[in-house]
């Protein structure tokens, strides 16, 4: 604040520069963007319905068809229950991977250009968009959990397990949304993005433990799955929703997912604003 700024007060946004104020702007901004996504969903119920169809097909068609393949269910009685966390994570993955597309589509272009000219940190813009994807994924997951309950597919119901797996799902979805923004910033055109999105999403899905135990995979694919964040997301949810002792440990699942989010959010905060200009 130099003397030259006297007589021209900043807007009454009461700008503070300390780290705490920056963190406050980050959190408020991110929360505001997540909140808006929920409001939009409320105006558009059809979207939730149409997006629920695919996971239900996986669960009831694919899951029922392979119900009797004993080796597939990873030691859990009901294969449909076994793949339920995988299907939730998959549905969330597809929401997230195509989320970066919004900007190339020019749907959110004006909004994001404006946000760049506000005191909100760039990381907040990226996390805000990512949390929008998480909100959609959570709504889908809750619908799917309700279906599991109604269809009497037995999972290990516990408040902690359900909440914990939703938190892990939200973190995982946000990190894939950040990955998507990085890709969007790099490829820049919608046509190319559609191709890249498929190219990234399908291998992530199949080279993970979403549909089968890792033990069934050939060694090289198992190695790929071990560096695939979707594996950790699914295995963490399996631990919490099915009490299945899969993977290393629950804290590892959370730590890997969180690390992935940190890396891609950081990258997206650097690259994504350039795609907006």
């Amino acid at each position, binding site marked *: *604040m130099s003397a*030259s*700024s*006297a*007589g*021209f*007060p*900043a*807007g*009454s*946004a*009461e*700008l503070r*520069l300390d780290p705490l104020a920056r963190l*406050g*702007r980050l959190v*408020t*901004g991110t*929360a*505001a*963007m997540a*909140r*808006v996504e929920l*409001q*939009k969903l409320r*105006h*558009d119920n059809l979207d939730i319905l149409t997006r629920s169809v695919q996971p239900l097909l996986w669960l009831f068609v694919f899951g029922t068809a392979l119900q009797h393949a004993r080796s597939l269910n990873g030691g859990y009685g009901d294969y449909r229950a076994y793949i339920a966390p995988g299907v939730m994570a998959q549905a969330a993955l597809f929401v997230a991977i195509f989320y970066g597309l919004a900007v190339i589509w*020019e749907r*959110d*272009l*004006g*909004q994001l*250009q*404006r*946000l*760049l*000219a*506000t*005191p*909100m940190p760039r990381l907040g813009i990226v996390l*805000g968009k990512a949390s929008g994807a998480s909100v959609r994924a959570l709504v889908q997951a809750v619908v799917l959990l309700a279906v599991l309950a109604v269809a009497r597919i037995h999972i290990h119901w516990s408040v902690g397990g359900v909440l914990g797996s939703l938190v892990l799902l939200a973190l995982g979805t946000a990190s894939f949304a950040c990955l998507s923004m990085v890709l969007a910033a790099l490829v820049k055109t919608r046509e190319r993005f559609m191709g890249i999105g498929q190219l990234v999403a399908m291998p992530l899905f199949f080279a993970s433990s979403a549909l089968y135990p890792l033990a069934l995979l050939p060694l090289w694919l198992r190695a790929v799955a071990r560096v695939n964040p979707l594996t950790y997301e699914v295995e963490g949810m399996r631990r919490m929703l099915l009490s299945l002792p899969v993977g290393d440990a629950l804290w590892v699942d959370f730590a890997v997912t969180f690390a992935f989010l940190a890396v891609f959010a950081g990258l997206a905060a650097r690259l994504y*604003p350039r795609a907006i*200009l």
Partner: protein
Amino acid sequence: MTETQPAILVDDLVVRFDDVTAVDGVSFAVEPGEIFGLLGPNGAGKTTTVRVLTTVLRPTAGRARVAGHDTVAEGLHVRAAIGYIPQAISVDAALTGRQSLEFYARVNGVPRRERKARIDGAIETMGLAALVDRLARTLSGGMLRRLEVATALLTRPRVLFLDEPTVGLDPTARRAVWQHLETLRAEEGTTLLVTTHLMDEAERYCERIAIMDLGRLAAQGTPQELRDEFGADNLDDVFAAATGHEIVEGGSFRDVRQQRRLSRRLG
């Protein structure tokens, strides 16, 4: 005491992208409370200039001060003092006007206890009371622009940047948008920098004008000064005299696509 401090000061600004020079040594100043028009065809460098002034883009050379702060060294202070309405639509079609207002109040850090009063004030200034609870996708182009201006007023900006605010609007809606901008200036003393490629609009509503062409400033002054200087009847002729050519359509494929899409959506 600091009445003479300009709201916007641009000093020999240069912006280069790879091998293209978008802004090439531009200087101008805007006084507090002024409606200033940045004029020129698509591709003249108007939007690039605005992006530097809103701190989104770093200049290659030269400097700019907005509301008394350097846009590079004190970017955060600038961002806290300004409002920016880009050409692309910045309110969500799937939200009501009020929800968009609440969103921008939150992301701009308007204190919780002041939110309602500020939102109500912005609704009144922009004459939106009857529309604000409708989904944005049901609003006309002129109403949308007024809603966007309202969302930018929540922080009580000292300087408001509007990039082609009337593009894609019919003449009636254009007039309404301008009348509300004039009200805003009169009531709040907000400094307005408006880019446009419509000469007649600039002539009627802007107090001072800078004409840009190919990244350079071709002329600046009040509309009257410009007409006198170039012995012309209107700004179209001023433009031709100042630049040596008629307004030709510039802009890349991307600009054109974006503008057409915008016009279609604003209907």
